[in-house]
């Protein structure tokens, strides 16, 4: 049961988006997320949505997967949508006793909903089309300038790599321990909340103990393979930017300019 959990839901493929350099993808995603908040009127939003639609289609990942990722935030979006509906200026569209919905409220609500959805969709494109190892690699390169501030960039990336490597191993182990404890009569499913939290203790303790043992073994294995920190280390897989990445940067730049243009040219819809 535990094994069904997938982490970093990467969909292998060979689409245009898949082939982009992961560093470029991270930068572009970051820019898009910023520009979702720059777009302050429906014209700007339309530009962003057009961009979104084309990126989703280009990624080659089934659209149903994107819908699934939206499901996770549906409640938050609905909640903020309703909340925003009642707070806003402008002319009253509908009122009943103390409740009052204005046109400003409606546009605020729509904006917030679209923004949250876009945030999720853009980051989904990144994680769906980039393998976890590519992501950690790209982050290591992008964070390199932070070394000046004494941030241990290599160590952080190494920890991410190891964590990703051990997620399935530890899940499998959790499953095994749960079965072992169930075989001894442990009841994991019934009782109130506190009862159930308490029943996790006999699972967590063996898991912790074995994780430390694994960590000790792994540290030894890494030393046996001459690991001595990031100093003088090379990488088998070199990232390189291609013409495709340049094109992607230019196209995304144009869209961002489009959003900026709309922001200055048309009146803001938010109030």
């Amino acid at each position, binding site marked *: 049961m535990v094994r069904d959990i997938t982490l970093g839901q990467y969909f292998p493929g060979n689409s245009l988006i898949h082939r982009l350099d992961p560093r470029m993808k991270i930068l572009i995603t970051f820019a898009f997320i910023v520009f979702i908040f720059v777009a302050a009127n429906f014209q700007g939003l339309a530009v962003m949505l057009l961009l979104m639609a084309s990126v989703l289609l280009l990624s080659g990942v089934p659209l149903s997967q994107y819908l699934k990722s939206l499901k996770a935030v549906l409640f938050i979006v609905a909640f903020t949508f309703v909340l925003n509906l009642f707070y806003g200026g402008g002319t009253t569209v509908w009122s009943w006793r103390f409740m009052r919905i204005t046109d400003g409220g409606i546009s605020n609500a729509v904006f917030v909903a679209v923004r949250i959805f876009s945030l999720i969709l853009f980051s989904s494109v990144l994680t769906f089309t980039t393998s976890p190892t590519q992501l950690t690699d790209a982050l290591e390169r992008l964070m390199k300038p932070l070394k000046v501030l004494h941030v241990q960039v290599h160590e952080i990336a190494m920890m991410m790599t190891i964590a990703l490597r051990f997620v399935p191993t530890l899940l499998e182990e959790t499953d095994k321990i749960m079965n072992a404890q169930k075989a001894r009569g442990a009841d994991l499913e019934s009782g109130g909340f506190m009862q159930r939290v308490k029943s996790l203790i006999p699972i967590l303790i063996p898991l912790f103990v074995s994780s430390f043992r694994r960590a000790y073994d792994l540290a030894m294995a890494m030393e046996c*393979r001459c690991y001595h920190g990031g100093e003088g280390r090379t990488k088998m897989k070199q990232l390189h930017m291609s013409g495709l990445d340049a094109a992607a940067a230019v196209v995304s730049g144009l869209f961002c300019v489009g959003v900026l243009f709309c922001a200055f040219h048309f009146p803001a819809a938010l109030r």
Partner: protein
Amino acid sequence: MDHYIKAEDVTFSYEAQENEKAPEVLHGVSLNIHKGEFVALLGHNGSGKSTMAKEFNAMLLPSGGKVYVDGLDTLDDALKIEIRQRVGLVLQNPDNQLVASIVEEDVAFGPENLGVSPPEIRKRVDDALKAVDMYDYRMHAPYKLSGGQKQRIAIAGIIAMQPDCIVLDEPTAMLDPRGRDEVLETIHRLNREKGITIVLITHYMDEAAGADRVIVMDDGQILTQGSPRQVFSQVELLQAHQLDVPQSTELIYRLKGEGVPLPDGILNIEECVSALEPLLKQSGNIGEIDASH
């Protein structure tokens, strides 16, 4: 012959607990490993064989005595990386020694640490994966592989550093029989075809029977050493120290004890069958023995 690894009167004790004197695990072990040799280091749990394995690549340093690898002193801190590149150590649990989530990236870990150039790493990784017959799995996630396959990936990760010698610390202890065969077949092939020196640490007598030389350790000392035939013919000595001999050897030994005329130093099933067959035919009890049983 060329002494590749040379241990001189090595003693070792783990760090002392408070107020208690740490027990000595190795009491003056001297041994030589020759270049290109396949050595089995035998002993039961607590005999000091795993501790000895870690002395070979400077993971542990002798408390007394010296260990030289290709003439390099393991006590010299500056030589540590160089020694570990020459003598690779494969551990027991395959799950705990793989670092990356993709097979080929894991194999690349060693050469990356050594600062090898990217195209050269690519070549080494491909060669190493082919050498352990796992090239088709290079893009797989390790957790989806069987134990034997994972252990072969771990061996590939060592080979990619281009070592002269591989020390394997009970590499088959956690594997099923099939995985065990895969791993043993792989290390024998590496020894034969690439001339890599192999030190196989094990407590399975049948694994040791296939080595060029067997060193038996007991209680932190060397009990006996020699060719498998020489070592396993000393059945009384081994049994006095709670060590087994290969099953075929024991069968022959017991039959001889009953007065059956049989040769010494039988190591495997084939030899056992060919020694027994004429005798049984003579007595006419069984006509034919199938060698595959």
